[in-house]
């Protein structure tokens, strides 16, 4: 330990022969070193740094989509238990975010967007983040299993595993298809929400999963088109760096062609109403138009503007269709209550 070597004390205790003056000087050294050496546990990390580890923006989308899945599911769940379920899913998502930051600290340090995160900024050690992530994972999964059902707990555990191990540790650094497969992790929350009520995985919940799964590649590839330098610097094999922008643009367009009709399926399958169906169809057409503009834009600086516009619209798209679905569900439930 730094303290014991600096103050002259060995395993048998402090050296009593030191003069007061010498002791003061050494104490100053201890204090100086204490502020620099995080290994002795004197962290300057505040609670808000731990909140950052949970990736609150990602968590908010997870909470939102899980809530939609939970409310869209047929059947009844006690509102208190529903709240606990959503909290567990949120904490589980936060835990996987922390594990992601633990493993990716090296590449976070070289990317502009992530360089100020708690580990690369030196406010929290990697070991602390690993412990924090594992602890939250265990608590969220066990609590969900105890209070809701085993299936939803297993799905949450699988989601954390998929994001932290399959995506972060394996796919992210090895293949340009990283976010295609890894996107599954972000697609599970509505399925978990559904399983919390029904204790099953059904076609409806798979459709809710597929909407997010097919939306993820065009969303992230649009981002990577105008952030490719950052990814290049971190040596992450994102699609534009590996296959080139032309191929990426075309694949973005293909994925929007897939996600647009899939997003209408909830209406066709009968678990969403016509308001949702028409809105999803209109948003799908707009999404395809944005992707078309990206595809037709010449490679180079001219791609940045349409790519940024498409990235912004992709967020609005997913949020919008899930919000309308949620609105419809709430109206339906309110009408049922009024009728009863």
């Amino acid at each position: 330990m730094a303290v014991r070597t600096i103050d002259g004390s060995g395993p048998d205790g402090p050296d009593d022969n030191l003069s007061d003056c010498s002791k003061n000087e050494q104490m100053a050294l201890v204090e100086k070193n204490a502020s620099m050496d995080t290994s002795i546990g004197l962290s300057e990390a505040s609670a808000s740094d731990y909140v950052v580890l949970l990736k609150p923006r990602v968590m908010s989308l997870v909470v939102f989509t899980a809530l939609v899945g939970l409310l869209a599911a047929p059947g009844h769940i006690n509102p208190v238990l529903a709240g606990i379920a959503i909290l567990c899913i949120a904490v589980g998502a936060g835990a996987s975010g922390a594990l992601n930051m633990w493993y990716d600290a090296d590449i976070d340090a070289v990317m502009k967007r992530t360089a100020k995160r708690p580990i690369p900024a030196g406010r929290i050690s990697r070991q602390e983040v690993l412990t924090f992530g594992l602890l939250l994972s265990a608590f969220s999964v066990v609590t969900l299993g105890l209070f809701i059902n085993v299936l939803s707990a297993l799905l949450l555990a699988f989601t954390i595993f998929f994001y932290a191990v399959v995506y972060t540790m394996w796919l992210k650094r090895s293949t340009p298809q990283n976010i295609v497969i890894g996107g599954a992790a972000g697609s599970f929350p509505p399925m978990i929400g559904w399983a919390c009520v029904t204790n099953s995985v059904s076609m409806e919940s798979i459709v809710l999963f597929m909407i997010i799964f097919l939306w993820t590649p065009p969303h992230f590839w649009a981002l990577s088109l105008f952030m490719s330098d950052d990814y290049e610097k971190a040596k992450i094999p994102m699609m534009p760096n590996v296959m080139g922008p032309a191929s990426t643009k075309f694949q973005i367009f293909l994925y929007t062609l897939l996600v647009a009709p899939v997003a209408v399926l909830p209406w066709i399958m009968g678990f969403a109403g016509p308001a949702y169906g028409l809105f999803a169809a209109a948003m799908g057409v707009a999404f395809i138009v944005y992707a078309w503009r990206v595809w037709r834009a010449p490679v180079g600086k001219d791609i940045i503007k349409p790519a940024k516009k498409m990235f912004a619209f992709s967020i609005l798209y997913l949020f919008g269709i899930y919000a309308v679905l949620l609105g419809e569900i709430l109206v339906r439930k309110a009408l049922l209550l009024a009728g009863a």
Partner: protein
Amino acid sequence: MSNDRVTLTDKQKKAQRSRSIALALALAAFVIIVYVGTWAKLGANILIRPM
């Protein structure tokens, strides 16, 4: 023995206090969740304890 002690800087004290409060709140929240969740899940059955 006093030489073994480390004096925290103001920033470290503030950060430690912030972490302690957050941890206390998280623990309190967890206790409440378990208590309320148990009532919600078991309801009146919570009083039925077969010997």
